């Protein structure tokens, strides 16, 4: 099963220490053979919506930036519990904040 782990942005700017820890975490996931892809996401980005024939393109930043994702990891594991266990390790590294784990179908 594949799971997408997404990290929401925090108020505090990430420091050197966090970057180093994140790199170690990514290395560990790679060595464990479960990490398929990972990356950071620009804040805001571009928002698109459509209504009838009309498509609206809006550049960020947006007011509700907290709800967006700041980074992701796509992992392949055998069960939801394994994904949660990996999420637990991740949360320990990044400190206070919030992330989501969603199963990827197809």
């Amino acid at each position, binding site marked *: 099963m594949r799971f997408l782990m997404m990290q929401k942005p925090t108020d505090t700017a990430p420091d050197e220490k966090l970057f180093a820890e994140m790199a170690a975490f990514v290395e560990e996931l*790679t*060595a*464990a*053979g*479960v990490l*398929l*892809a990972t990356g950071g996401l620009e804040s805001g980005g571009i928002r698109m919506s459509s209504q009838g024939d009309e498509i609206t393109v809006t550049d960020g930043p947006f007011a509700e930036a907290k709800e967006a994702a700041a980074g992701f990891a*796509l992992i*392949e594991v*055998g*069960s939801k*519990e*394994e994904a*949660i*266990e*990996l999420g637990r390790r991740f949360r*320990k590294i990044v400190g206070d904040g919030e992330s989501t784990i969603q199963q990827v179908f*197809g």
Partner: protein
Amino acid sequence: MPDSARPDVRRTIEAVWKLESARIVGGLARLVHDVGLAEELAQDALVAALEQWPAAGVPDNPGAWLTTVARRRAVDHIRRAQTATAQTATAQTAAAGTLALEEEQDDVLRLLFVCCHPALERDARIALTLRLVAGLANAEIARAFLVDEPRVARRIAAAKQILAAEGAGFTRPGTASTAGRLSSVLEVLYLIFNEGYSATAGEDLIRADLCREALRLGRMLAELVPGEAEVHGLVALMELQASRAAARIGPTGELVLLHEQNRGRWDRLLIRRGFAALLRARETSSPPGPYVLQAAIAVCHAQAPTAEATDWHRIAKLYDALVRLLPTPVVQLNRAVAIGMAYGPEFGLTEADALQSIPALRDYYLLPAVRGDLLSRLGRPAAARREFERALLLTQNRAEQEFLHRRATEMAGQNKSPAAADAAAAVDAEAAATAETLGEAAAAFLAKGGLDPATLRSYRQTFTRLRRALGDSLLIDELTADVVATVCTTAWGSAAPRTWNRHRATIRSFGVWCGRPEIATELIRRAEKASPPGGGLPAAGLSGADLTAPWADSRHPLRERVFWLLLHESAAPVSTVLALNVEDLDLDDRRARVGGRWVTWRAATARLVPDLIAGRASGPLFLTARRPAPDAPADRCPHTGRARLSYERAEYLFKRATGHTLKQLRTAAR
């Protein structure tokens, strides 16, 4: 696991175990020098978790918790077992805290090497790897390989015993054998992958999960030994094959061939990972090995936007290179397919036809399936249909059976439609309307009556082989002496003269019965040696068919075959045969003097003994992989330093191979 554990905690424990077991067991094995014991200690920790976590809650760092508890047990064990200062020192350092990442990774690598020890059989290596490295439970392994759980448990227990007996301990193989061991690890991973890949939609998901486990272990291994091109090659191959997993099963569970797959359903992420892994293999600048070449072939398919755009010339060239390194029948068959695609079906058919006399491909369904495909492309639907039907008889896989049935039916349809039939097909069709087929004739022949049960059984064996090799719908009129001779030589060419003559006699009387006596003309009668008085199996002490010449089965190691054969032919006591030294052997007179008596043997043993001696001039004839005790110089091979095979070990190996005791074999020989 105890029922007291709440399901969610239990599942968390299972998840932690899967992620951590290799590291935990590997670390323990380094302490106690025995993987079997290491695994038991780790299991103790797992049981402790199951008892404590439901009440106390899941600890902050569950992996570390399990490691600490397991280590504590290991230290207790070492203290109990040994009071030697060195061991206590080990115990203290062991208990002391965390390990560097490199050390942990080294443990995992060594664990993989031990699980794929050459003393273990293939199935044992697979089971042990899945259990100790991938952290699967016996029940999961049993479900994945469609066997029952006690059998897996027995297999794993036996494997641990063998490792202990071989003194495998937990040492990393020397540099000389590392390469060989690594290829054994790669083989095991690829076997696990393929077991999962061949699972069909209707089956237990755990089977398909084997692909994920193999990929996980492969990616893990690639980080452990980043300089090994073949490891990256295998990972690339698995990623690329896995990328097609969804597209190769159709909506009703049927198998979809590569060139018919919807390429939009291929997993681009895995394809990209496959490309990346192959690039890493190339960066090592080693000459391409078998896995790298197979991955390169998979890349050719992945790069083609449509089936028609596939670069078959390049694939055929890669197969040319692969067949030189890995001249297995299956690779040769794939090469024939590639040549058929690159240069035309007639060239492919020539290659495929040349493979028909290879015994290993005798019952391999893909050979007739490939020939069927090539024949259909050459516009010979009747012959193609026959091949698809033959293939159908040879596979047990439901999806593949359905696919072959579909192809056979298509061919039958083409046969009837005059528009689709060219000259060759028309001839085929016309003949089909009037003449009798091999299947019908064989059934009628067997049903003709007047045959006693033993003869009937013997006749059936002959026909089963003929029908499998030629297909039920082959017309009797098309049966030629050449074809019959090829089938018989492939099937029984190396069998005893008596067996050969028995099948020959069946075919002769069948030929006469159906008015085609000439079909047996190429089968030459073979001289039968007079059997030794009272000799031959089965005999007293053996329960008949259970033990038919185990030494004739070339899947057994040479040492075992020579040993059994020598026991059988000489009827000498087991301990006498084990005591034989190379310098005692008189190869010309087929005898040896040992312990005041002569041991003599016959032609079959004499044929194999030189291979076993392999240039040695003295020392024990039958060796183990172990070194002997220092006080037993007579049991030490001066060439290799290895020890004489023991009675216990010899008995164990024979029992495992045949279910009988050596004494029974020896009594039978008299």
